[in-house]
């Protein structure tokens, strides 16, 4: 049984991290080949494990494969460390390790000129991959949290990677550093929620194992309110990690790191962890329809807000960052809509939300990795990230421009490319609750509208980017371009573009049966499967193409592409007409990112630091002052005693006495209150 060795999947990249970390200096390419090797091995084992699980009896019986060893035992709690494999695990680990492998290969070309720092880079990305795979395979929430935090620290280190000597000078270095800190701290806000959620769940279930927490009998026995609070807190963690509204702001700033890191964070790891957490926690989340409604609303709003911010951005990587946030919003919204349906209707056979969300996550992994690596190839060639300085690159960089076109078409939802299928399912999932006339139907109708507008915006900003980069007149930076990037960069692009184009067809090849959410109800002995929505390929095909909304979203996407073409390629519509040369209020509002960064600065710096300083001040002066006064009164005036060094000591001493009196008072209050 190869499944018994599934623990090797996260362990091997970890060993790669250690090997590269210690010996990278002496190895060729700073140990890059070791990192690639470990990623390949992780992928191969993942593939074998997935094959064995998906063809085995456990999958047929909708049962996970679980193997645990005890890690901690304290009091009445036991915490295990182990692996948990079900169909979701298989899908996640396959695409994570596969895409990471390609990104690692690509790094060889991209990072070639980095010299000594390559060792640190390869060590850290190996650890990153290890963290993600560990998170995917974790068999309980605490284990998941540990890997979740490891990834958090890694991203801090990786985003700050260029902070020593950024190719674009000192200012960029400082930016990278503060971006790294921001990413770390903002996601930390989510982590607080996650961690508190862990304690709430530990309290309700006495355990954190998935096998316990997802057991319907256990769920029925636990306190409903606590499951509600626990679910909300877990979702708080998702908001931080997957950059959802209103904590979306760190991800675009995290673009300060190398492009390959962005590809890794956006496509294969990190931000996908949040979506994975929602999918993984489905059995808990569906206990409360309100939780799922909140999930859907946050997702829908994020999708819209982030897409609108991408509309006028001039930085090629930032456009992609906003698009990631927007697409993550799509996934979360789909998961929320599907879950809402299950929560309301009980045994619904045809909720496609779960399938749509996970499916889009897979497709997005392919086309977003492709897009980032294309962007990296462009930046590598022209040495800037500003799209205003590019243009006309399609002649010099044929492979990059062609592959990026495929990626853009895919994300825009161009018919028959991968993004088209999953986005269509998402729109359908968002529509479902209102078609069925559920209580929150109007909200979902609104979310559907947001999602549809987002589809248009996505097509527009992606092609705005593509046209500005590859078409039109060559600008200053394009002149420097030496031509196509090296082969280690273009080969992964070509491989990924094939997947980005075709991964959508997987849904007809049985993926719909793999990405299903199943609950085995031990209580009633009834097993119900959700998702799949009909089991034949023809059925899916029919349900997509007989739906009028499919054509609406198709039309919106095509209109977006056309508009971008007219504005940025053909030039028949001047962009300035819309934004009054960048003077219009909406334009400024979008450029300022809805003023979110300012808001955070106000809250985090002014308020947080202010409170800290205030407390310090009170501690030093006010309390001392009061104590001084009191002690003067007690001692009878200190006119004769000059305030010297020892004066402080007297104050401190007086403060102790005051403290004693206060404590006596508090205890007296507690006692009399307790007695009453």
């Amino acid at each position, binding site marked *: 049984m190869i499944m018994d060795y599934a623990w090797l999947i996260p362990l091997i990249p970890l060993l790669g991290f250690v090997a590269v970390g210690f010996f990278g200096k002496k190895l060729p390419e700073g140990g890059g080949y070791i990192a690639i090797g470990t990623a390949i091995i992780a992928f191969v084992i993942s593939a074998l494990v997935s094959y064995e699980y998906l063809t085995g009896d456990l999958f047929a019986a909708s049962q996970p494969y679980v193997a645990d060893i005890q890690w901690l035992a*304290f009091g009445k709690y036991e915490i295990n460390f182990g692996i948990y494999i079900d169909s979701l695990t298989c899908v996640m680990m396959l695409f994570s390790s596969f895409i990471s492998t390609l990104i690692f290969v690509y790094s060889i070309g991209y990072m070639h000129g980095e010299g000594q720092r390559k060792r640190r880079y390869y060590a850290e990305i190996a650890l990153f991959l290890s963290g993600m795979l560990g998170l995917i395979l974790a068999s309980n929430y605490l284990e998941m949290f540990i890997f979740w935090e490891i990834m958090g620290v890694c991203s801090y280190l990786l985003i700050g990677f260029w902070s*020593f000597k950024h190719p674009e000078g000192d200012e960029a270095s400082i930016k990278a*550093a503060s971006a790294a800190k921001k990413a770390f701290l903002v996601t930390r806000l989510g982590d607080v929620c996650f961690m508190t959620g862990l304690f709430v769940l530990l309290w309700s279930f006495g355990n954190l194992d998935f096998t316990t927490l997802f057991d319907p009998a256990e769920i029925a026995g636990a306190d409903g309110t606590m499951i509600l609070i626990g679910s909300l807190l877990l979702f708080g963690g998702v908001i931080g990690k997957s950059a959802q509204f209103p904590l979306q702001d760190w991800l675009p700033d995290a673009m300060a790191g190398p492009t390959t890191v962005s590809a890794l964070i956006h496509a294969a790891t990190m931000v996908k962890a949040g979506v994975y957490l929602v999918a993984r926690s489905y059995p808990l989340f569906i206990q409360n329809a309100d939780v799922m409604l909140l999930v859907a609303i946050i997702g829908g709003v994020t999708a819209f807000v982030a897409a609108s911010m991408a509309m006028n951005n001039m930085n090629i990587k930032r456009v992609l960052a906003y698009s990631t946030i927007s697409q993550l919003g799509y996934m979360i919204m789909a998961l929320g809509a599907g879950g809402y349906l299950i929560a309301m209707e009980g045994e619904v056979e045809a909720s496609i939300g779960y399938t749509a969300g996970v499916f889009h996550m897979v497709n997005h992994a392919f086309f977003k990795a492709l897009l980032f690596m294309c962007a990296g190839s462009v930046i590598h060639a022209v040495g800037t990230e500003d799209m205003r300085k590019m243009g006309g690159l399609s002649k010099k960089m044929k492979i990059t421009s062609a592959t990026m076109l495929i990626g853009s078409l895919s994300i825009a939802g161009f018919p028959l490319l991968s993004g088209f299928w999953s986005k269509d399912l998402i729109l359908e999932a968002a529509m479902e609750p209102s078609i069925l006339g559920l209580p929150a139907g109007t909200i979902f109708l609104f979310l559907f509208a947001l999602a549809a507008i987002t589809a248009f915006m996505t097509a527009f900003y992606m092609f705005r980017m593509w046209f500005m980069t590859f078409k039109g007149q060559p600008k200053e930076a394009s002149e420097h371009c030496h031509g196509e990037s090296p082969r280690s960069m273009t080969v992964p692009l070509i491989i990924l573009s094939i997947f980005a184009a075709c991964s959508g067809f997987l849904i007809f090849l049985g993926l719909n049966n793999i990405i299903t959410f199943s609950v085995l109800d031990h209580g009633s002995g009834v097993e119900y499967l959700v998702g799949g929505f009909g089991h034949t390929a023809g059925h899916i095909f029919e349900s997509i193409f007989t739906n009028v909304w499919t054509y609406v979203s198709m039309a919106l996407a095509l209109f977006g592409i056309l508009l971008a073409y007219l504005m940025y390629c053909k030039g028949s519509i001047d962009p300035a007409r819309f934004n009054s040369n960048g003077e219009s209020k909406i334009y400024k509002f979008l450029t300022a990112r809805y003023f979110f960064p300012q808001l955070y600065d106000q809250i985090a710096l002014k308020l947080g630091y202010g409170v800290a300083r205030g407390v310090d001040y009170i501690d030093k002066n006010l309390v001392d002052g009061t104590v001084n006064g009191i002690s003067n009164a007690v001692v009878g005036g200190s006119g004769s005693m000059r305030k010297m060094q020892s004066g402080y000591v007297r104050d*401190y001493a007086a403060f102790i006495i*005051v403290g004693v009196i206060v*404590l006596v008072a508090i205890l007296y209050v507690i*006692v009399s209150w307790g007695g009453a």
Partner: protein
Amino acid sequence: MSVIQEGIDALMPIMPQFILIIAALIVPAIGLKSGKASSIFTMAAAALAIAVTAYMMYDGYTDSFMDIFEFNDFTGLMTVLFLIVLILVSLISYSGSETRKHHGEYFALLIVATVGMIFVAGASNLIALFIGIELASISSYALVAFKKNDPASAEASVKYLIIGGLSTALSLYGISLLYGLTGSVAISDVAQYLAEGSFTWTYIVAVITVIAGFGFKIAMVPFHFWAPDVYEGAPTPVTTFLAIGSKKMGFIVFFKIFLMMFILAQVLGGIPEMQWLFAFLAAATMTLGNLIAISQTSIKRMLAYSSIAQAGYILIVLAVGSSYALEGGLFHMITHVFMKGGAFIVVAALCARGLSENISDYRGLAKRAPLVAFAMMLFLFSLAGIPPLAGFDSKFVLFSSAVTPDGTWIWLVAVAVINSAISLYYYARVVKAMYVDKGASTEKMRVPMPFAIAIAICAIATVAIGIYPGPIIELCESAVKAFLLM
């Protein structure tokens, strides 16, 4: 022969202290010749004492010495912990720039202070407890002043002495009231009385004066303000000793008196109102410590406030008042020795190489001393509770102890988790300075060998306990069992 045998038998429960006291008598003579030799001698004595203690624990030895000191698994674990602290501190004491002269006296005082702490761990009556505390305290007053010719050090020492004297007076006052109330100085009798007792003014005043007196030792809010001044002024090895050693002693006192009382009271049925008092104190201590730490520019002061915050976490034990909480508390005390000790040792090492205590001086350290910077990052992340480091494990166990079936203390868990997140802000600031900011100098720096060894020990312990905490938790478990029988 039999007389000697009898003598050894009688002394057996205090054998580790006995060894240390003899060492303390010898070390001044060695100190006249060489600081290095006296340091090595101190460490050897401590190692011998550890070996003896470990053998006694392995043997399952329990016995009491004249009804004032009891050796059992709890005493044994704490003894080993204090001796580890002694070894770490001795290791870094002679090669630093801050403790250059009078090595003999310095090491003798260190050893004597350790003996005092060990005595507190095993004390079974209030008088013995008090004497142990005083032995440790008076030695530390002198140790704080050891940075000769430095007014800051002298000032810190005077402050420490005066405030310490006041708190001693308070605790002695409390102890005498307790004796008056119960007619006994045995800790078990006192705890029993407190658990059964009804609230009278005498009772309240006795309890509060004891809390205030010993609260000073653990730098609990509102008796915390001496700590930053003293930690900053004292020589860094002594600061390390105070932060990871004498603070633990204060907690043991609290556990002995109040935890016992709460556990007994719970058996009688009913949550003592005083647990609420400790819950408030815990919340206030951790919040205040973390908030003030944010705005500090001196790393020693920052670590001092972070120590206050850590004390707040450990106070959760008293709020929850269960044996399981004590297990978490002991576990956190052990991990705290390595992570906080490690951080202070790094500060001392850099100090020995002429780096100031300003956080801004740590800029670009990752380039200058990569391994030291990496170790510092481990310690700080562990203090912040980032998995899979030791601090995360112990915090998790400690916080989860507050997750009780009735959910009374779940708010305290939330406060603690939020505090952990706040603390990351100022720890990350140091990491950022070391790894991200550009330093004024890029010259390579080597820390002296003894420091490097001490840092390595702490770093390895921080990682190893984090990944494989099982054995340590088991030790804590058996210590708690022994503690409850005391």
